[in-house]
């Protein structure tokens, strides 16, 4: 702090603090509070009624969210699919990160890392379009499978939940790999060797040594992947089409129909459940916020 004062003076530090506070309060906290407020007020088509006697606090929006069976189904499907995407990302990301860490500083690893990164320099929409091409009815994957004679008719990948899930895993797996990689990298390789030397088989070394050490990375990877999957709009839109509706789409439709109140209630529901999920994951892995922020 004193160093900052020396460098920027009181005016400078004041400006920086003001900037940060402004950013946090006005651009993040305020809209969220506004959304919560909106969610608990009725939709009034006539703008004159807003702030009038009809504009009272109510839970009717939430009643609409939870009483419509289609909404509930889409909602749980989104949660379930996001959990599935998270688990699959973890199952792929964990061994991959471990191999990357243990292989050390060889040239191959550098190439592999760049290979992992380059697709992510491309816009998310374009990447998802690429998967559309791969998964299409006469796309790359079906052509190859049919060419090999493994299947006779093309498999329907696009416009299905499965297609969306594949796309989500691809879109967000790096957010799983990077926290995993960085926690695993801080594990002393001698720990692994010591467990092995004491007689631990392969799976015990992971269960007793690598997983406990990587817990903060696993937890933050899972949380981020889950949040991004549950909140993804582009991937279900492009790969799910009209057949596979996701909860973000429902939110969007309400805002599109100018019913901000109902849209806010949808959004609030999703955010709340994601928070519950985060807390559950943290409790499950017995990690604190401090560990995750590391």
């Amino acid at each position, binding site marked *: 702090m004193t160093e900052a004062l020396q460098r920027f003076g009181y005016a400078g530090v004041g400006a920086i603090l003001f900037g940060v506070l402004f950013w946090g309060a006005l651009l993040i906290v305020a809209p969220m509070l506004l959304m919560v407020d909106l969610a608990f007020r009725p939709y009034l088509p006539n703008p004159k009624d807003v702030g009038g006697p009809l504009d009272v606090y109510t839970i009717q929006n939430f009643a609409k969210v939870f009483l419509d069976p289609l909404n509930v189904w889409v909602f749980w499907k989104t949660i379930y699919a996001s959990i599935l995407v998270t688990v699959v990302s973890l199952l792929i990301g964990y061994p991959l990160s471990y191999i990357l860490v243990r292989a050390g500083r060889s040239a191959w690893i550098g190439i592999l890392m760049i290979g992992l990164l380059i697709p992510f320099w491309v816009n998310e929409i374009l990447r998802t379009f690429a998967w559309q091409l791969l998964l299409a009815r006469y796309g790359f994957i079906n052509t190859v499978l049919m060419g090999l004679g493994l299947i006779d008719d093309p498999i329907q990948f696009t416009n299905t939940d499965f297609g969306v899930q594949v796309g989500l895993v691809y879109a967000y797996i790096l957010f799983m790999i990077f926290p995993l990689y960085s926690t695993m990298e801080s594990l002393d390789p*001698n*720990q692994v*060797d*010591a*467990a*092995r*030397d*004491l*007689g631990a*088989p392969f799976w015990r070394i992971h269960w007793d040594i690598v997983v406990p050490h990587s817990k903060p990375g696993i937890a933050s990877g899972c949380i981020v992947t889950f949040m991004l999957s549950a909140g993804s709009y582009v991937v279900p839109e492009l790969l799910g089409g009209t057949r596979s509706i996701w909860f973000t789409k429902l939110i969007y439709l309400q805002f599109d129909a100018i019913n901000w109140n109902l849209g806010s209630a949808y959004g609030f529901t999703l955010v709340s459940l994601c928070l519950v999920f985060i807390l559950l994951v943290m409790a499950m892995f017995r990690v604190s916020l401090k560990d995750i922020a590391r």
Partner: protein
Amino acid sequence: MANDLELIDVHKKFGDFVAVHGVSVAIPQGEFFSFLGPSGCGKTTILRMISGFIDPTSGAIKLAGRDLNGIGPNKRPTALIFQNLALFPLMSVADNIGYGLMVRGVSSAERRKVVERMLELIALRGYGDKRIDELSGGQKQRVAIARALAVEPKVLLLDEPLSALDLKLRQHMRQELRAIQRSTGVTFIYITHDQGEALAMSDRVAVMSQGRIEQVGPSAEVYNQPQTAFVASFVGENNAIAGKVAASEYGYAVLDTPFGRLRAANPRNVAAGEAALLFVRPERVRLAAPGANGADNVVESQVLDGVFEGPVANILLANEGQQRPITVSLSNDGNTPRVARGERRRITFSPDDAILLPPASRPVAEAMPAEARA
């Protein structure tokens, strides 16, 4: 096989680099054996080959006659103590010690008993529930030993385990390690670059240089009868005086040196006319009484400096224009003579305390004549 652990012509190459070059040694059950050598000479590589983390490029490692090749580190009856200990920080002391038994499926009741016994052995009773980061350096050291011994290995491998400790603790741990080794009867293979450590603890020491064993023997033998110039200069303090052999007979030789003609034992039979190094320990050199003479070597030289080290006082002598002074250690026994800087002094040592060795560091087996090898 009476010999418990055997290394037979073990080589290890990393690419083109030969890290271990034809190491052969047999270590009987229950011995405290040390590999001593400078950093980078291949000690850790040998230890990792014995524990099974890396395979020899050629040669065999046998335990009680059984070839260990292809047996993974988790299946070998060896236990390794890592240079940085590698205790598991997320487990308690007791869980660390019991880990090897747990992965072997030993029941928790049985495990508790062994852990108690181990804590007793390392004098840390009641520390079972402590976290690793609550322990001092020496305590961590002992927990690492207990963790390795709990699985009842046939051979315990120690990779410079004391190097992180401060001097006092290091010396204390030497005795403790030795005592634990005696009471358990487990073969200890200890590697270190600290010659004091190796000499103090070991039954036998193998001195290594650049991937080869230069000499194997009991501490006193390695110290008193070095067979190569490398061993003579690496193990303990030594004076090295370069010269040319003038005559050689009956196991002794006469060497022409900048300090004059000197006589020394010639165990490697360096022939007349060849260059050689004469080694004599500082503690075997004495100040000569005025006028004294006889069979001993006598050198007159100028006192450059005196260094007081507590139990001994070292005096450095050299003639005009010589870079390498001779060091004389005078024991601080109450009768230490006073020596002034710049003074000329005569020093003396017996030819039996001086050893003539070929200057190039060649492997002993190749360099020694056949009759001396037998």
